[in-house]
């Protein structure tokens, strides 16, 4: 590879640089401007608007909303409630998705399984919540089956509490983590585990020494995306949980501030706090990932 081939040759009208890289002095790079403006307008503006709104209180510009949130136990508590739901759910999702994706990566039923798992993603959280309400409630199939099988003596309560929300997070989050990890797994050159096998690595050691290190970036991304999705839980926390107490997640606090108290300033502050917590966790996870190898997962070259 020579750098010379990267430089657009002057004087050759109409000749496009054929390299994938964008030259710093390349006027073609300006073509991204409209998209960039759109992104700024769609994403950055609401964020900045929310930040400004959260800081403009009745007493003028101040951190009063933030101080109020962190000094009120009832509000402060929502962070831990949400983390207590989203972190275990994310761990379970990614933790289950890894072995299942590994086992099914070359299975002939993999396509069928993938199709079945895509369904919850397309249904949306509200429909899942309604389904789970019927399935997991005290009069639902699960409870009645357990009673009928004498595995339980009283109806099982898995709705309108922590477990209802937790299970809905697993149902909606698992397929997502599975599909992500499956694509990472199938991207690993099959010659690598084969090489490990010829060098004496049992299937278990192939997993530990070859698959796992190469999957770290995929695991980190799957964890971050699943976590962000789970942390912003709202419909199932209301429909399947106990929104007044055990599952009063941070998005409910923001919703109440905005649409029950009509205090947009406080609501914005809560939203900003929510984003900050997500950002802290994502930065932590990506920081840990940075300690590991994160290059290509093919056989280097060739």
């Amino acid at each position, binding site marked *: 590879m020579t750098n010379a081939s990267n430089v657009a040759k002057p004087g050759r009208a109409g000749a496009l640089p054929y390299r994938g890289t964008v030259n710093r002095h390349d006027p073609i790079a300006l073509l991204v401007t409209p998209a960039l403006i759109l992104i700024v307008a769609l994403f950055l503006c609401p964020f900045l608007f929310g930040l400004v709104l959260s800081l403009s209180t009745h007493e003028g510009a101040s951190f009063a909303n933030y101080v109020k949130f962190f000094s009120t136990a009832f509000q402060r508590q929502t962070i831990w409630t949400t983390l207590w739901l989203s972190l275990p759910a994310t761990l379970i999702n990614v933790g289950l998705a890894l072995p299942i994706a590994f086992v099914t990566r070359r299975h002939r039923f993999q396509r069928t399984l993938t199709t079945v798992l895509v369904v919850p993603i397309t249904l949306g959280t509200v429909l899942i919540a309604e389904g789970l309400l019927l399935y997991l409630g005290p009069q639902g199939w699960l409870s009645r089956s357990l009673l009928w099988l004498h595995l339980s003596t009283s109806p099982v309560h898995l709705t309108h509490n922590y477990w209802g929300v937790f299970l809905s997070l697993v149902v909606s989050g698992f397929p997502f983590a599975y599909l992500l990890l499956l694509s990472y797994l199938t991207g690993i050159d099959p010659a690598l585990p*084969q090489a490990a096998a*010829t060098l004496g690595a049992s299937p278990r*050691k192939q997993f530990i020494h070859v698959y796992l290190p190469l999957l770290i970036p995929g695991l980190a991304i799957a964890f971050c995306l699943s976590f962000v999705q789970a942390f912003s839980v709202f419909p199932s926390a209301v429909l399947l949980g106990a929104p007044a107490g055990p599952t009063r997640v941070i998005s409910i606090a923001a919703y109440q501030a905005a649409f029950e108290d009509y205090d947009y300033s406080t609501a914005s502050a809560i939203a900003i706090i929510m984003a900050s917590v997500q950002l802290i966790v994502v930065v932590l996870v990506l920081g840990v990932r940075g300690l590991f190898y994160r290059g290509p997962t093919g056989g*280097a070259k*060739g």
Partner: protein
Amino acid sequence: MERDKPSVGGQPQSFQQLRLDRVSRSFGSSIALAELELTIQAGEFIALLGPSGCGKSTALNCLAGLLPLTGGSIWLDQQRIDQLPPERRGFGMVFQNYALFPHLTVRRNVAFGLVMRGVAKKDIRARVGAALELVQLQAHADKLPGRLSGGQQQRVAIARAIVIEPPLILMDEPLSNLDAKLRLEMRAEIKRIHRDLQRTTIYVTHDQDEALSLADRIVVMNEGRTLQIDAPEELYTRPANLKVARFMGYRNLLPLDIERVKENRVFLAESGIRLEGVAQEPLATGRAIASIRPDDIQVDAPETSQGSVDVGNVLLGQVEIVEYCGRDYLVEVLTSSGLLLHVRTQKRVVAGEKLRLAIPAERVLVFPPE
């Protein structure tokens, strides 16, 4: 490198003879490898040679344990090994795309097999050092494979395979991703390593030059079947059939009528051409194919006019196309009787020039038609 280390966990360590007994592999209804019969003595260098899709890589993967057999068996002396998983066979394998672990440094790539065997840290360090020295990569020991050139990666792959001191080394087209110059260098390197370590090696390639220069014996394969197993010189001068001849560079295949047969000599004729050759199989009458290598045809100027009829193994022709190949020329000559011959000569010729071609009768191999 040290030899005679203690045997590890029931793995085959050294052997006298590796025997492939009717080894077969099919995928669904298509047969990738049909009843390969081969007995290899310890220390031999065997090349599996054939065009792509001929089953040579399938054979290698079956030997490595990466592909289960659908028939036959593999024996290491008295031990049957075709049921063992690859990690329990203990063969070293060099993959076509090298398959280096991208997340491990060169040193840890080479050490991988030793770590898997639970070799002591001190010994690992010493043996990895020795292996890296053998392939002249000490300076790159702490780099990741992605930072190395193709030839260096290839050497790491070889070091990784030989450091475990396997009884058998399997190489799957190890040079096919390298440029021409590097390929020659690495070929010499592989030859040198084999000479120094005397490890039994099975080498898969589609390049007959590679096979001829490296191997003690060559297995020529096509469409899953073994065509011939022989030493390089034998194979080159005496191909068993037309398919092998074609693959070994016999570019002139002339279908002619048999005029008469005298012992193993055959006299072929057709409109104005007569050719004497050696019958490779019993022939009587009808058609036969004369096969001649371009470099077995001698080129002279037409000093004595023989008229318009070619007599014996002397043909007259006119140069059609000249390809310059550095050391010599590859020339297409149209004979006066209308045959197109490929000729290799060191004599400088130009298109349109008239030539007299002489072909020694013992270098004209005559096969029955396919």
